[in-house]
């Protein structure tokens, strides 16, 4: 059953046009991943308007290839320039940059790309196996189940996201509030417009993503005054081959990283903890833990495998449930809606060519990706040697173009600028941006699910716990919401017992 579908998918993904699209996507994605201020999420957001005229399958292939490319590109800046483009690349810098400083940049990059490839491939295989099953289960879901899953999505930001849980919650609430601005499609009432006609159409999350992640990130980079003094990498087939010969030694690290990544990754905000966790495990089980942090190749393999397994896994809830696992997946989900597709489990029944083309393109995209980045690393790294005086206006202009082209509306460029300043302030004060964006994307869906559930139960919130599936999910969500309180309580308890035992002689 699943296998025939995959063959069908490959027939779509291997069409020359779609292969070409994948190559373009990987190149653009890697460039975007290397550039400061442009990451996967807003790269996808900026290019989204260009896909409106494409067939949906090619469009999603372009965007997912961009996503893989951006993930690969992040490894280049982490290793050669010690600049983690994304939070989940932080752990890669620990050992990647020392290696590059020692002149082993080629080995580090080869290890990073190979681990990324293995991690992503592992996730894609699991997606191939589990996505149809999950979609089948999800077909039986009603509004209470969907609302419960959304609760779980947001609770994991609070329980697992690290940082200040209150600020995570504020970010989520703000996202939902921004999403509710404009016309209420159920009752037809105008909400939170305060008489301004410009506010009637609400805030588009694409603009928010471009502003928050794009402009905000550049403002941060400016303040830190980063000078890109990178290590040079010599990478050639011999280096690649010799590194590959050593990698089977780390088979266990690969497997562990891939499992951690997938398990953490299909929940939102999971990629960063997954990469750190995988790094910590690799260090604990290593025979030479003292070498970690000084340029140990295993310290590159572990976080990269996990981060990319997580990056792949984030697409699983998006295609099966219509609930994205990461900001980038959220933007893709927005794309699906714009292309006229209804995200969610029905997609497997209604558009198998789209779903399986997408899944097959994850295989082809990763294979093309790893070959391209290995071949062209010096070119991509050269981008960061372009002077800042040119890069900055270029990136800002590209952001503005992307923001304008969504609705051909001038006010969106202004919104982008405002969101940029908000993004800068929030980032500095530790308000997380990813949950805000996710809430903005899911706002209408979540509210409708809540409304329909309440109509079903005639106003009783108990419906979320009395139905078996939604009950389990809701309880899990409540647990994650309470997790910061529980850990704080336990810490206090432990501290008091420690001080108590210290006092007694």
């Amino acid at each position, binding site marked *: 059953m699943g296998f025939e579908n995959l063959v069908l998918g490959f027939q779509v993904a291997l069409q020359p046009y779609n292969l070409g699209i994948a190559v373009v996507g990987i190149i653009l994605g890697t460039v975007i991943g290397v550039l400061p201020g442009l990451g996967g999420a807003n790269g996808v957001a900026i290019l989204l308007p260009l896909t409106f005229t494409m067939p949906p399958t090619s469009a999603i292939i372009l965007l997912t290839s961009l996503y893989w490319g951006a993930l690969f590109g992040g490894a280049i800046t982490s290793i050669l320039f010690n600049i983690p483009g994304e939070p989940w690349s932080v752990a890669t810098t620990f050992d990647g940059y020392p290696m590059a400083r020692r002149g082993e940049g080629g080995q580090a990059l080869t290890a990073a790309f190979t681990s990324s490839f293995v991690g992503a491939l592992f996730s894609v295989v699991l997606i191939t196996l589990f996505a149809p099953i999950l979609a089948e289960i999800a077909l039986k879901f009603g509004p209470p189940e969907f609302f419960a899953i959304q609760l779980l999505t947001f609770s994991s930001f609070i329980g697992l996201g690290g940082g200040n849980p209150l600020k995570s919650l504020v970010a989520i609430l*703000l996202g939902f509030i921004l999403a509710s601005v404009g016309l209420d499609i159920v009752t037809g009432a105008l909400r939170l417009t305060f008489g301004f006609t410009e506010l009637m159409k609400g805030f588009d999350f694409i603009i928010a993503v471009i502003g928050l992640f794009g402009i905000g990130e550049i403002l941060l980079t400016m303040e830190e005054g980063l000078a890109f003094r990178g290590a040079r990498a010599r990478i050639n087939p011999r280096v690649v081959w010799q590194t590959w010969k050593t990698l089977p030694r780390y088979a266990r690290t690969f497997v562990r990283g891939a499992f951690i990544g997938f398990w953490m990754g299909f929940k939102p905000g999971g990629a960063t903890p997954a990469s750190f966790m995988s790094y910590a495990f690799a260090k604990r089980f290593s025979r030479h833990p003292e070498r970690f942090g000084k340029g140990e190749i295993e310290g590159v393999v572990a976080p990269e495998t996990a981060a990319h397994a997580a990056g792949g896994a984030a697409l699983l809830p998006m295609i099966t449930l219509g609930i994205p696992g990461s900001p980038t997946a959220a933007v893709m989900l927005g794309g699906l809606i714009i292309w006229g597709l209804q995200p969610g489990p029905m997609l497997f029944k209604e558009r198998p060519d789209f779903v399986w083309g997408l899944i097959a393109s994850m295989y082809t995209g990763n294979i093309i990706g790893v070959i391209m980045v290995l071949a062209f690393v010096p070119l991509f790294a050269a981008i960061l040697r372009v002077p800042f005086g040119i890069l900055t206006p270029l990136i800002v202009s590209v952001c503005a173009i992307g923001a304008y082209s969504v609705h051909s509306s001038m006010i969106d460029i*202004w919104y982008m600028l405002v969101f940029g300043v908000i993004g800068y302030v929030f980032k500095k004060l530790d308000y997380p941006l990813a949950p805000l964006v996710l809430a903005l994307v899911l706002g209408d869906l979540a509210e409708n699910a809540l409304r329909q559930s309440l109509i079903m139960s005639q106003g009783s919130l108990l419906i979320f716990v009395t139905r078996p599936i939604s009950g389990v999910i809701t309880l899990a969500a409540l647990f994650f919401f309470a997790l910061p309180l529980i850990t704080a309580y336990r810490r206090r308890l432990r501290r008091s017992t420690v001080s108590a035992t210290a006092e007694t002689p």
Partner: protein
Amino acid sequence: MRAADLVTALVLMAVGVLVLADALRLGIGWGTDGPRSGFFPFWLAVLLLVCCLAIGAQAWRARVTKPFVSREGLAPVLKMLLPATAAVVVTQFFGLYVATALYMGFYMRWIGRHSWLAVTVMSLAFPVITFVIFERWFLVPMPKGPLESWLGY
């Protein structure tokens, strides 16, 4: 940092109050066909106010002496933000292509201190390439001004 934290919490609380007021206007109870329009925003605003109060209290008690932005850090941030804002104003009146040309040129000369030749080439090449990609290939129109209409677009 503490002041910035407090101010942000206050601003967010003001947002919360605005949302609360509008939610009450729309009705937060049960309408003829389910929860009314203000129901969801009302509870969002209530939670937001509670959280911001708690964050404000945390910030009040915290003793962080680190400033939100250092004096050396602020200058480059403003040097990026102000030209960008100016470029958006120019876009509003003269279209995106003129604005990006001026913005590129100004920034490259002022911050990057590049030669006039490089400045001229880049600030002409970028809008032209953008024009070809967006208006010609992908048929996505950009904001245009008097220059483009004079050229016949």
